């Protein structure tokens, strides 16, 4: 099975042709992870359910991005574009949730009016 599509008639850019087997293999993993997602939702893990579900989703997404979308063979610049998008998504999530998660967290100070403060008289 050819790995490189080179053509003698035109100076087309060289690109890496992925073997079909690789795609089928990744597809198999994706379906397995889908089944795992559904099963994991049925296991009561409390607040960790969402983390497990998202973790599996991230793995699936990475498989699609790296293999199906050919990021594996792409330039470093393309990696940076993909990474930048995720970083910015992270910025939006973190700084927005930073507000919602911390509402009411700054403790209320108890205001003591001056007359209530007794002068400290040092003992002789």
């Amino acid at each position, binding site marked *: 099975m050819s790995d490189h599509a080179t053509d003698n008639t035109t100076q087309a850019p060289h690109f890496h*042709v992925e073997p079909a087997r690789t795609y089928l293999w990744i597809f198999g993993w994706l379906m397995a992870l889908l089944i795992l997602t559904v099963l994991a939702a049925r296991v009561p893990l409390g607040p960790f359910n969402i983390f497990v579900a998202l973790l599996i989703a991230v793995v699936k997404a990475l498989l699609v991005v790296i293999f199906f979308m050919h990021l594996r063979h792409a330039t470093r610049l393309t990696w940076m574009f993909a990474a930048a998008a995720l970083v910015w998504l992270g910025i939006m999530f973190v700084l927005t949730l930073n507000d919602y998660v911390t509402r009411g967290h700054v403790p209320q100070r108890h205001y003591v009016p001056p007359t209530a403060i007794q002068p400290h008289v040092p003992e002789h």
Partner: protein
Amino acid sequence: MTEIPAPILPGTDPVPTDAVQSHAQDVHPPYLAHHFDDLEQQHEADTLGMWAFLATEILFFGAVLTGFTVYRLNYYHEFQAASHKLLEWAGGVNTAVLLCSSLAVALAVRACQLRDRVWLVRWLLITMALGLVFLGIKAFEWTTEFREHLLPGHGFDYALFTPRDSAGHAAPHEVVLPPEGGTGGGSGGGAAVGSRSPQPDQIAAEKAPLLSPEVDFKPERAELFFCFYFILTGIHATHMIVGLGIFSVLTYRAHKGYYTTGHTNPVEIGGLYWHFVDIVWIFLFPLLYLIR
């Protein structure tokens, strides 16, 4: 002024003029746009352009998901109850359908790279068929939800989410509407205000969740879940429809043979777009359907 020498194309040597014509044909095929120097530059530019566009789409969906996350964190119980109402099997099947379609797209790109016109068209058609299956199941889901009065707005059935006590009686609940519609002020007890509060005879006790009295549970927050559900799946479906449009054009042109002479860019970047739509669904499925 010094003479400007003729440009030397990168990677090539200056060739005698009689060989220029055929050489030019080799390096400047008809699908090389006039403003690019060579095919490699065009290919890299096209790919980068599509990845930049996908970055904007990540932020586009991400913004809605940010809102969804904020509400899910604050209204966990209502969202959980609402998520139970979705057809999990439909979501799961749809995920599988899209994963198959991603495989089909990947194989289509591969066929394009190998200049196999027949299989390129076939895989593109299979992809589109799977996309239509996805949209069909989605339409079925939406009509089901519409019939069950889960569409946010006037038809929403609050009774489905009105908490009941252990005796099965629904707790009285008042939606506090803006001043023009009602009295405003606190909740609990009293007559229903405005046209959107549940009437006592609408209570369907067997459908409502059973909760202890101290849990703060408001049905309109479940409606909020469905707002996000329909908006997220709606925007996703719009992207699918656009993708189907793009793929129809690609399939037609592939059939005509445009993409099996070395010009793989359109199929590749079309594939990138389709994979991205798939990835969005990979995240939407657990976020929407599997809140447990």
